[in-house]
């Protein structure tokens, strides 16, 4: 009851001094706006990071890299066959902590359909590739065991390939043929389109309201824009056996069969359980040391460092943005405190009158704190509005996948901060007002 009245009085006080109150609130408005903008920016960046990381296979994905032979093993370098298909087989047999093992061959080749030719990354893979790369086949099927044994001339293509070689970017050209290099392949599957949430929304919006002139000449949307997702979309996948016989001139290495010493272009594996990450790495190392006959011409690359780096930079971002927002809120708070102190000296007589008719010092204290809180909360609400406006600008300026995201928790947090600043800024003036004796206050000129 008393609090409600206090709030009403707070608003009355603001109404009585509109301009002054506005100036006072400005600090809080800016503080809340920058706080919210900071939350939204970092949330957007974090979201972008997470999307990219997940598309790249997450932390579970580990890459086996080739390394130069260490100098002390220089004399016996001939002993190691290098990173071969055998490694993949050995890992499948002897590394139970890995869930998928994907040996890969790849190269860039011109891919042609009808009269269009574009260069794409062509990868020779086995079935595990689907899992290590976190691919999703939207239409048709993925490459099969049988394709591999038969050295079939079949391929699975990404959405980017469809967009660039076919007229309808949403088309499903299953069963159609493309020429990869000099060989004809049949399309048996099409991956889903990989894109950030933001891109997806924009594309759907465009589909609903197509831009006025459907430009016939220019090819599909936004393909020149850099995006992590482009790697994944612009891909042509064929059986590893077909790849090695058709595109690798190194016939002498043979095809990937039991014990083959075919050199791999890539070897990616997925750790089954992140809890056992270190153990899995040790296992990989152990198995490969055997196949490489003790020669350490390989390394195991994890995403751990990348993750750590991302997290640290996110934390730093939070801190520096937080500092800026904190400072503006602090300045806002000092502004409020200043005004409250000024308004108290203006109203000492009023305080005396209230005390004379029976207000306790706690009533006076409460009144001042509530007034200052109302002022700050109002500033917070305006700040919220300002922040949403600011967001429009930031959205236009920041890269696609790092779009600011306004989370409800950030809104609540910012408002809470504003109210907190109001309470804190009110405490000292309130204490000053409350400690006045009634007669001192009444006599004040």
């Amino acid at each position, binding site marked *: *009851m008393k609090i409600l009245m206090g709030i009403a009085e707070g608003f009355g006080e603001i109404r009585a001094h509109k301009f002054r109150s506005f100036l006072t609130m400005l600090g809080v408005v800016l503080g809340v706006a920058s706080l919210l903008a900071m939350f939204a920016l970092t949330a957007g960046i974090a979201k972008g990071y997470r999307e990219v990381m997940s598309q790249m296979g997450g932390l579970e994905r580990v890459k086996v890299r080739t390394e130069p032979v260490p100098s002390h093993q220089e004399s016996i370098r001939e002993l190691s066959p290098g990173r071969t298909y055998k490694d993949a087989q050995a890992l499948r047999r002897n590394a139970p902590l890995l869930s998928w093992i994907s040996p890969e061959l790849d190269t860039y080749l011109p891919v042609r359909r009808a009269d269009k030719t574009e260069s794409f990354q062509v990868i020779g893979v086995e079935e595990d590739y689907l899992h290590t790369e976190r691919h999703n086949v939207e239409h048709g099927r993925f490459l099969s065991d049988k394709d591999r044994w038969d050295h079939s001339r079949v391929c699975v293509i990404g959405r980017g390939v469809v967009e660039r070689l076919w007229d309808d970017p949403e088309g499903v050209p299953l069963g159609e043929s493309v020429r990869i290099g000099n060989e004809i392949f049949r399309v048996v599957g099409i991956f889903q389109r990989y894109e950030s949430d933001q891109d997806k929304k924009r594309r759907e919006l465009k589909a609903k309201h197509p831009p006025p002139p459907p430009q016939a000449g220019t090819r599909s949307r936004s393909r020149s824009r850099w995006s992590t997702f482009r790697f994944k979309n612009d891909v042509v996948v064929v059986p590893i056996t077909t790849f090695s016989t058709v595109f690798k001139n190194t016939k002498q290495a043979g095809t990937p069969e039991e014990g083959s010493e075919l050199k791999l272009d890539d070897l990616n594996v997925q750790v089954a359980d992140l809890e056992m990450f270190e153990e899995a790495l040790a296992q990989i190392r152990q198995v490969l040391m055997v196949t490489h006959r003790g020669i350490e011409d390989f390394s195991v690359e994890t995403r751990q460092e990348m993750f750590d780096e991302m997290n640290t930079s996110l934390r730093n971002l939070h801190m520096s943005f937080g500092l800026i927002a904190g400072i503006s809120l602090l300045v806002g708070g000092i502004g409020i405190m200043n005004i409250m102190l000024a308004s108290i000296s203006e109203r000492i007589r009023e305080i005396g*009158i*209230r005390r*004379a*008719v*029976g207000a306790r010092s706690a009533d006076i204290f409460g009144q001042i704190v509530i007034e200052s809180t109302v002022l700050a909360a109002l500033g917070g609400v305006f700040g919220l509005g300002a922040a949403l406006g600011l967001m429009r600008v930031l959205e236009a300026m920041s890269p696609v996948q790092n779009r600011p995201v306004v989370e409800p928790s950030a809104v609540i947090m910012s408002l809470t901060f504003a109210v907190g600043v109001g309470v804190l800024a009110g405490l000292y003036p309130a204490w000053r007002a409350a400690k006045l004796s009634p007669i001192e206050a*009444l006599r004040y000129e």
Partner: protein
Amino acid sequence: MSLIELRDVRKIYRIGDIEIRALDGVSLEIHEGEYIAIIGPSGSGKSTLMHVLGCLDRVTEGHVRIDDVDVSRAGSDRLARTRNEKIGFVFQSFNLLPRLNVLENVELPLVYSGIGKSERRRRALEAVAAVGLSDRTGNRPNQLSGGQCQRVAIARALVNRPRIILADEPTGALDSRTGRAIMDLFRELSQRGHTVALVTHDANVASEAARQIVLRDGKIV
């Protein structure tokens, strides 16, 4: 049993080395229903005495009992309650809140005694009627004459039905005709059974009171 009792009250101000004895050993009893005029030359301690009686100020020495409560030893919240419930104070300079209208000013003591809105309104209207200002309830103090302001202040003093009404030169800021009307109001209150104590410079006014207390240099003579 007296309503107010002062025993050996001293109020001493120290400014540097100088000691000002605003009240210097005042003993006094006021009974329920009395009408008292306090007179004396300027600087004799009349206002100081009123503030002590009104629980607005603390004494340096001595005891003050109001309605059987030793207010000279009470905490500040207790004093606030006493001011709120037992005392109505009328100031020379009215002391109304400029941003509140007549009704809101009169309601103010009731706000601090925690009385609900509708009851506040009812009682405030009653008090405003008692001072003859029913037609000005929505006005702000700066829209009223001095006499009307003082009526509002009296209504405010009455609104919580206090046992004691104190007034420090209530007509000091008014012309003599308006002052006359205000004094009539106090006499009426006294006749209705309120205990009234007021400070005045006007010998005629003082002579109307049943009892006169004369102060000189902080002492009752």
